[in-house]
Each structure stands twice: as structure tokens, then as C-alpha cells.
């Protein structure tokens, strides 16, 4: 049960930042994961009045407010044109429409959850996270930071020549993923992000240049095998480490094959 003593719709980021310095207080985001926990909260801090629920195109960037819902990510034309629909694919399997109308991108990222489709996707985009106090930091760094009492304001995507494909494996529709996989080409660099290992997502670069310029099946196979061997997997009730390793090879291969087709069209 979640027990909340006070509820505040803050009127400024400063107010939210000051309140969250007390560890008994918490920023609730969409409150979906928080509600599943047994905890007592002194003050629930709600950012819903701060206008952080918009996706805005800037000259060289796309700004995604922390209170943007997963449903907005799914439906936004700007983001989905930019990501060839991968943004939609990354969230559309998460529970149901009603859930995605509540869950926020800020809440999904701030928790650095192992199971997070959203973290996997934004890591593949090499996005940046803007913290009120901590400033703008790369999401890769943010994912490995210990949670600090700060306010996640927005996510910043630096627009670059991009191709990206998202895939996940689920035991059943709407469940948590067994494995998430997002591959991207940003400028000329290929990356592969694997999440729900069930540890949190991690990004691999094609450091040894295993992929050839045509993305041949053989070169994709070589990279898939290399990453599957290097990546650390764990076991939980959804799947064993060994199962995940096998699945990862398949998802990486399929995702790069799809990326190849995407580049042709």
C-alpha cells in the first residue's frame, strides 16, 4: 500500500527540487510503479501543473517533457517519423492504452528500471536527460548514476542522421519484456542496446567493426554472436540467463536486418 500524508501540485521546478531534498518526499511521475510499492510518503510531489507534457521540435533537437505520457510517445508524429516508428514499437506493448495514458516518460527513466522498454529506446537514440540541478547529461551516464534527489525536467534528442529499430520479446502480450533490443545507426556509428536482461539496458558499439557496409547477413550474425557472448544476462521468473542469451542473438539479427531494409527504402 502506498500511504501519502500530503499532496502538492508544485508551481515551479524550484519548489519540486526543494521538496524532493527530503527523502520522505517523492516526485510521483505517473505513480504507476510507485503505487505497487509498500511505502509511506510524507509529501507526494506532482509536476502535472508545470507544462512538462509536451513534445517540442527545436532547430537541432527534440525536447520531450518529463510528464509526457507513454501514449503521447506512441502517437507523436514528429518522434515516430524521426524514429521510423520505433518509438511507437517500444511502448505499444506496455500493459494497455489506459496505463500508457498515465505512465510518464520521466517516471520511466528516473527509476532506471531493468525492465524498461523506454530506457532501452532512449539509450538507442543517444538522448540526453535534463535534470533541474544536475544539468544536461548523456542518458548513458544517467542510467549508471545512483538516483540523486533531483527533478528530471525533459529528455533531449539531438537530431542526427538516424536509423533505428526496436524489438522486444514477451512471454505474453502486455507483460514485462523478457528482453528488449534497439539497434541504431547514428551518423555512421552502429549501436545495439539490450535491456530487460533483466538488468537495466546497456549499449554496445560495433567497436571491432564486425558489420560491413552492406550489412550483410554474415556480418550481422558475427556482431549478434559477439554481443550475445559479451552481454551479462540474469535469470528471473520470466526467463533464464541462457534463454535470454539465445533470444538476444535472434533479436539483434532481426533488428539489424530490418535496419538494412529501412535504409534501402
Amino acid at each position, binding site marked *: 500500500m502506498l500511504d501519502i500524508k500530503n499532496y502538492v501540485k508544485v508551481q515551479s521546478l524550484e519548489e519540486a527540487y526543494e521538496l524532493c531534498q527530503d527523502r520522505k518526499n517523492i516526485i510521483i511521475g505517473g505513480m504507476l510503479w510507485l503505487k505497487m510499492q509498500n511505502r509511506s510518503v510524507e509529501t507526494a510531489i506532482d509536476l502535472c501543473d508545470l507544462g512538462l507534457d509536451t513534445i517540442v521540435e527545436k532547430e537541432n533537437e527534440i525536447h520531450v517533457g518529463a510528464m509526457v505520457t507513454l501514449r503521447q510517445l506512441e502517437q507523436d508524429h514528429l518522434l515516430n517519423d524521426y524514429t521510423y516508428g520505433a518509438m511507437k514499437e517500444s511502448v505499444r506493448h506496455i500493459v494497455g492504452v489506459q496505463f500508457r495514458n498515465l505512465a510518464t516518460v520521466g517516471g520511466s527513466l528516473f527509476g532506471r528500471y531493468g525492465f524498461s522498454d523506454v530506457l532501452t529506446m532512449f539509450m538507442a537514440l543517444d538522448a540526453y536527460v535534463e535534470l533541474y540541478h544536475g544539468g544536461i547529461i548523456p542518458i548513458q551516464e544517467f542510467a549508471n548514476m545512483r538516483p540523486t534527489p533531483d527533478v528530471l525536467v525533459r529528455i533531449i534528442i539531438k537530431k542526427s542522421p538516424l536509423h533505428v529499430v526496436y524489438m522486444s520479446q514477451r512471454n505474453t*502480450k502486455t507483460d514485462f519484456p523478457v528482453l528488449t533490443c534497439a539497434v541504431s545507426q547514428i551518423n555512421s556509428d552502429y549501436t545495439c542496446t539490450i535491456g530487460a536482461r533483466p538488468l537495466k539496458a546497456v549499449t554496445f558499439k560495433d567497436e571491432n567493426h564486425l558489420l560491413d557496409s552492406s550489412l550483410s547477413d554474415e556480418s550481422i550474425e558475427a556482431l549478434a554472436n559477439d554481443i550475445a557472448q559479451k552481454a551479462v544476462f540474469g535469470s528471473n521468473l520470466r526467463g533464464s540467463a541462457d534463454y535470454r542469451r539465445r533470444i538476444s542473438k535472434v533479436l539483434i539479427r532481426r533488428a539489424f536486418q530490418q535496419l538494412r531494409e529501412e535504409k534501402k527504402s
Partner: protein
Amino acid sequence: MNVKINLNGKDIEALIEPDMLLIDFLRSQGCFSVKRGCDTSNCGLCTVLADEKPILSCSVLAARMNGHCIVTLEGLQKEAQGLAEFIADQGAEQCGFCNPGMMMNAIALLKENAHPSDEEILDYLAGNLCRCSGYEGQLRGMKAYIAYLEQGKENS
């Protein structure tokens, strides 16, 4: 704390606890169609419309909904009755427990997309669990209802 919520077209003012969930607020206002099926944000039974969007009322604070419009099945009797008949005609109604949430979300779907494909129906209703059926009956019922609405438009 005090909240003002427009519930099914009527402005309501109430004194609530800060951690009261919307579902409990709605039931305290007599909206018993809104039910708690799983309490883990999964089953869709507690679906209501908040500013016309379907949400899980078990997973949001009533306090956040201050100043917003909430519609429950009680406020959608006309739409619900029409759809319910088509769902029942397909034998999709067995225990009926999932029905209010399913109806709310189906109505939300048709508001957003009046001509959904089978895949769009199944995707939109994926967050509404039914443990009696295999969802095929609901899908047939939805399609028959959409066809009926279409025919009504053509005839008018």
C-alpha cells in the same frame, strides 16, 4: 483536502484524503460500475475517461483529477447499452465482470478511431483482461456494433 471534479457532467466538490485513489472516490460517489479487479494496474476493469482519455482509476490520485472531467459507465448509458447488446449477441458475456472496463475502453477507442481494423481493436483492448472468453466474441461483437453504427449513418 478539497477537490472539484466534474463527474458525469455534474460538478462535485468533496473533502478527500491526499492518498485517495480515483477509483475509491468514484465509488464513494455511487459509481459502482468502476471496479477493482487486480489492483496491479493490469486488468483494465477500473477504466474511466479523464478529459475523454481512458485511464486506470485504480492508479491515479483523486487529488490529481482536481478540476478535470471524469466520465464513468454511469454517464454513458446510451452508448453502453447499444454496445452491450452486440457483445451479448456473440455470447462473449459470461461472468460479465470485465464488462464495464471493456465497454469504457471500447467507447474510448471508437471516439478516437471510428473505423478501427481488427488489429487496432485488439491492440486497443489488450489492457482489458477477460478470463472467461478468448476475446474472439468481444472482437466479433465490436465489429458488428461498428457495422451497425455505419449502417445507421448511411440510412440517416
